């Protein structure tokens, strides 16, 4: 992903370069977090083992005092951009990479620390960022995000996805996946995540696709086509097929394909797929699809 432009020698240099972690720890809001991967911060930051991030504007600094000084003047208490979803303490903000370039770049620097295959090769102008937050009286605190191309040739409805380490295993990641499909439904398009998926990403998506599709099959009375399932869920036909095939739910009987939906079998698959995450309450989504201006 994003490596086509590099020739063989540059690619080797790139691989070597990205193996060595530079920043080992970051401070972000309430937590001090160990990083997982290298991130290409500007060269001035190469001598730092730890960076301090402003939780809201995501500016990063090398010393704690610098962050504390910054906090005195930074009046941002939530991601820049529009709040498009609010349910209880959970909020989703949409940030346009073109309108909030520095924020978008800061977010990419930060996210790369926890994503192996993400590339920062190109600028953030052509992306939208969906920032998931938990809100309290100190502000709206990012727990995770996903990015999305404004215009995708390949019908990608998600580019990168990350739940920050302190907030993992709480259902936020699954929420982000579900949310990306709710946006696709509102756009009237099918979507699929950008490839390659990480190991965790593939597991999460398989779980999501399984839960959504099998719940429909449990309730559906008559015949159904893959296309209809795709129209109902905004899940791409390929993903539906590969999910059902991997669960052996598509069989060939009496000269035609059939879907096996024995409730006991489906329940066993659903159990294996794991619990759903936090639900998306569509009635609380206030959003119109992105339109290019001017």
């Amino acid at each position, binding site marked *: 992903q994003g490596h086509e*432009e*590099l020739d063989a020698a540059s690619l080797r240099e790139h691989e070597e370069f990205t193996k060595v972690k530079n920043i080992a720890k970051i401070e972000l809001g309430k*937590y*001090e*977090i*160990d990083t997982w991967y290298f991130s*290409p911060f500007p*060269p001035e930051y190469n001598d730092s083992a730890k960076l301090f991030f402003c939780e809201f504007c995501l500016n990063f600094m090398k010393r704690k005092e*610098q962050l*504390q000084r910054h*906090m005195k003047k930074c009046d*941002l*208490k939530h991601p*820049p951009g*529009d*709040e*498009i979803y609010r349910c209880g303490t959970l909020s989703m903000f949409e*940030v346009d990479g073109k*309108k*909030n370039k*520095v924020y978008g770049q800061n977010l*990419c620097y930060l996210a790369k620390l926890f994503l192996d295959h993400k590339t*920062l*090769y*190109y600028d953030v*102008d052509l992306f939208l960022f969906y920032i998931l937050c938990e*809100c309290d*009286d*100190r*502000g709206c605190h990012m727990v995770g995000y996903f990015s999305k191309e*404004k*215009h995708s*040739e390949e019908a990608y409805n998600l580019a990168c996805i990350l739940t920050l*380490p*302190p907030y993992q295993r709480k259902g936020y990641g699954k929420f982000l996946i579900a949310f990306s499909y709710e946006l696709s439904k509102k756009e009237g398009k099918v979507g699929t995540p950008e490839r390659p998926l990480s*190991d*965790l990403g593939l*597991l999460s998506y*398989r779980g999501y696709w399984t839960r959504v599709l099998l719940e429909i099959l449990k309730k*559906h009375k*008559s*015949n159904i*086509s*893959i*296309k209809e399932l795709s129209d109902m869920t905004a899940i791409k036909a390929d993903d539906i097929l590969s999910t059902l095939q*991997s*669960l*052996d739910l*598509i*069989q060939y009987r009496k000269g*035609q394909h*059939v879907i*096996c*939906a*024995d*409730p006991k079998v489906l329940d*066993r*698959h659903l159990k*294996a797929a794991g619990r759903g995450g936090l639900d998306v309450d569509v009635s609380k989504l*206030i959003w119109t699809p992105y339109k290019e201006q001017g």
Partner: protein
Amino acid sequence: MSRLSFRPRPLDIHKKLPILKSARDFEDDDPTVAAFAAARVGVLLRHSGSELTAAAAATDGEGNSTPSKKNAQEIPTPQFDDVETYDRDYTRTFAQPSCYIRGRGARAEIGEFVEYDLDNEDEDWLDDYNNERKNLNPEKLEVLLFKLEILDHKARERAGAITPTFIGPVPVLLQLDVAMEALQYLSVRYAVFQAVYNYWRAKRERWQKPILRRLQPPPPVNDTNPYNVFRPREKAHRLHTRRMQRRENNIQSFEKLRLVRRNLDQAKALMGALIKVSSCIN
């Protein structure tokens, strides 16, 4: 793969597929089919390929969890700690409005927000400069450095020296006297101002680029250095495989349609004549 996966024809996604709810529906082939299908559930993860096994082992115990060395490497475990000073650093001053929050646009465009934050060099220089007595506080230095950057950027704009991407060292065009006059309102003593200006200028000359990140030109698209990021990219040219939906309803379109109609009428008349002629011949 077993006989269950025998598929002589590719699946048509538009075709409605029967949904078989019970094991009895499978009986046209083999009574053991249902049992077999159920047994396969347990191996569904292995069946789907190695990526999924690696991922599966890391689930919260709900799936087939047999950890292996490979799996431990694929999905890192979060390590994190609390920040002690959090309660002091982040104040409880956020009042969530009842309506959804609307974005205001980037701070840079709106007003007087000081985008620049002092870095290590700046702080160290300031400590030295304030060694004997307190000449300057950090917030003031921050404002000065920020304003100097903005003024220099404007000077380069006026001189036509702004390039869309990084093609070489970025020059400093802002002169001390011009800066002094523009920033008079900050009420800084001349000696202090001069010291800051000289410090800033020297730093700029070492860096060869602006010290405010937003003003640094991005790398050119053909730069292959993996250290460089955020190259500008044009929106990908989208193949127009269909005519634009927005058809203009104007006079030209109307005339065109009229012309097409005339041509079709003529063609119809010709065909009619041809038919007559050929039937007469016969």
